[in-house]
């Protein structure tokens, strides 16, 4: 078997094992939380009688292990089951939420990744001069401010005062593509500002590291321009750590944006998950958890594979 195919299939198998472990962990942790779905739904209005009836209806009286393996049996057949609290089909509800989350993450990535790498290259080109310092200062400032604050500031000045974009990033199926883009403009800006610094600094550091090596000096001596040296010799050799940090940030854009979703009332996965954790709706929490874990594992796997492919030493192990 070709070593690369073997590598990918090994990684995939490991990924599935990790997913299984993650689902067991999530299930165990939600079980360990105080209270259950019946209690959370009834809240202050819980009477012992209503609680007992609701538990019976939700099937919470059965042992935890039985419920877990029933759920596992379902998901293997592609059935995510029904929400305990509102009886809606989970696959259907998650479908549109996940679509929204990916839509926002995609556009945030389209803006932020090229911008971050370009700024990183620019910073190397003008290392220790004012453009480098300016880029670092601005991006480090925006990553240091909590994202909700950036969100509120943008809402106040851009949406309420200037009236440029809508303060709410509500999107639904009846909107056209351009309306949707207009609607998510503010959250995309916020997310870009949040992830920019990490990727930019990593690009800068990785390339500077390579710039110390002898072959870069050779390239300079043979008369290549500064930017060409970076672009043709330094960047390909620095790509592994950059891909790694880009993937980590992409994963963040998908699974870590709940605060931004709340500020902009965006109907994504984050808010959906938080609501169901509060209500102890285990099937939904498991489904969301597994999807999030799959995205994290998948993106990290891609980063690993790219790193290996980009490095001849790892590509041809002794």
């Amino acid at each position, binding site marked *: 078997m070709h070593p690369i195919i073997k590598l990918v299939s090994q990684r995939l198998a490991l990924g599935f094992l990790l997913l299984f472990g993650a689902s067991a962990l999530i299930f165990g942790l939600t079980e360990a939380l*105080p209270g259950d779905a019946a209690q959370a739904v009834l809240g202050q209005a819980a009477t012992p009688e209503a609680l007992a009836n609701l538990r019976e209806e939700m099937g919470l009286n059965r042992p935890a292990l039985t419920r877990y393996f029933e759920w596992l049996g379902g998901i293997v057949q592609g059935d995510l089951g029904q929400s305990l609290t*509102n009886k809606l089909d989970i696959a259907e509800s998650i479908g549109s939420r996940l679509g929204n989350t990916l839509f926002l993450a995609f556009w945030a990535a389209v803006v932020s990744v090229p911008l971050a790498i370009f700024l990183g290259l620019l910073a190397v080109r003008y290392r220790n001069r004012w453009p480098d310092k300016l880029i670092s200062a601005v991006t480090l400032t925006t990553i240091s401010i909590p994202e909700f604050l950036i969100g509120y500031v943008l809402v106040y000045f851009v949406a309420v005062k200037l009236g440029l974009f809508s303060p709410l990033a509500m999107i639904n199926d009846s909107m056209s593509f351009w309306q949707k883009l207009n609607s998510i403009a503010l959250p995309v800006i916020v997310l870009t500002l949040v992830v920019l610094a990490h990727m930019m600094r990593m690009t800068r550091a990785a390339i500077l590291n390579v710039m110390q090596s002898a072959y870069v000096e050779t390239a300079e001596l043979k008369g290549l321009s500064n930017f060409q040296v970076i672009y043709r010799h330094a960047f390909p050799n620095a790509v592994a750590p950059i891909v790694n940090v880009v993937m980590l940030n992409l994963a963040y854009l998908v699974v870590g944006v709940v605060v931004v979703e709340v500020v902009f009332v965006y109907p994504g996965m984050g808010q959906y998950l938080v*609501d169901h954790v509060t209500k102890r709706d285990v099937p939904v929490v498991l489904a969301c958890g597994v999807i999030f874990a799959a995205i994290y594992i998948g993106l990290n796997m891609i980063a690993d594979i790219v790193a290996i492919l980009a490095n001849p030493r790892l590509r041809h192990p002794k």
Partner: protein
Amino acid sequence: MNEQLTHMTKQVTAGKLTRREFMGKAAALGVTAAMASTMFADAARAAGPIKGGDLKFGLQGGESTNSLDPATYASSVPFQNGKQFGDQLVEVAPDGSIEPRLAESVEGSADAKVWTFKLRQGVEFHNGKTMTSEDVLKTMERHSNEDSKSGALGIMKGIESMKADGDNFQVTLTEPNADLPYLMADYHLIIQPDGGMENPGAGIGTGPYKVEVDEPGVRHLYTKFENHWNPDFGNFDSVEVIVINDATARTAALQGGQVHAINRVEPKVADLLGRAPNLTVHSTAGRGHYVFIMHCDTAPFDNNELRLALKHAIDRQDLVDKVLRGYGTVGNDMPVNAAYPLFDGSIPQREFSLEKAAEHYKKSGHDGSPIILRVADGAFPGAVDAAALFQQTAAQAGIPLEIKREPNDGYWSEVWNVQPFCASYWGGRPVQDQMYSTAYLSSADWNDTRFKVPEFDEMLFAARAELDNDKRKDIYSKMGMMVRDQGGLICPMFNDFVEGVTNQLEGWENDPTQEMMNGNMSRKMWFS
């Protein structure tokens, strides 16, 4: 000039004069612009509701776990949803009287044990079926039978039997209760076809708007139901309930014009928001109250002297000023206030007094160990701050309070009604009887102060059976005094409903029963 103005306002009322024309002509007569604007608004209001437009609410209190099943309603968005697509048998009017809805009239027997609701005929459900007394019976059964998990289960307990009889629906009670019509006005008791036995979350009712889009935790869209039994209800073409749980986003949406009305305006921004020219902040005194509750049967709170010491050691006015920023009224350690019918306003207000607190504390003989008060901001907004203020004033009286912060998550299942001293919130009930029977009757599930006094229970039952309002008022007054002086309730304040509404909407009225005009904005208001 006066005659001319009168003529012009009449023309406005008849819809023959636009605002621009009216303002112009009024200016020609030497009337100031502000004056003319007010006159136009008055005249337009007199013209009555205008139909049409798309109403948008931005509301706190919705989650992706919400269902349209009325039995599950426990927060603002589901409450508002039910009011769009459904009707109860009766509704509590803003003045506290009973207003007929799906029942045309209500009649009680002389002993207040048998109640007959005469049902409106020809009422159509959104699925085309006509409402019958069977549907009403099934609905009530679903909320009260032994499989029920309804939020209304508690109030349905006193019912012995129910029957559907032609055009009538009849309820027989185990004990007399003069307030039964108020119980039937509960917002969970929406009449559904076949009682919603088959598919309770389908959102089919008799209300003025029918369900178009149901995305829990995001938005709910309703369109006008043309065959509603009352053509005066529901002036809008569509109503959209948008879930905006973040307070800043909600205010921004109202200012930016994305929504027309929002609930739960934070008291600290209410004054500022109210200065915006295109909207009004309405503050309505309600029956909800922010409280600290002590278990009367658990040491050290089983000692009434200690309870009285704590009650005297809290500065109510200071809490209203600082926690509610004035959007509320002081409480009197009773769960009822002037917003309730038959309330006795002559009961003296308990004042903040360090001397009395110290005196009672000394009499209690408490050993001086810290008294633990459990709080979370989920109990009521500002609960942690309120507890800190309470701690300071108690310390001045020599009472050591120790504040223990609890997580919001799980507060209502792990702390409230479990721990002996904690912060809590009560939403209030339409009548005193319901408030007392929910939380102060010895046998009540939610007796969160463990107030168990047989004499009090007897008075409660006596008041229920009493049809003479003067005598009832007298009994309620005595009950109030009893809770105030012996109970485990420290009630520093009643909070107002603070809501922001655009000036494009006309027809606002203050309704103390529930927030947002008791959920009737989409029925009663209109775009000017």
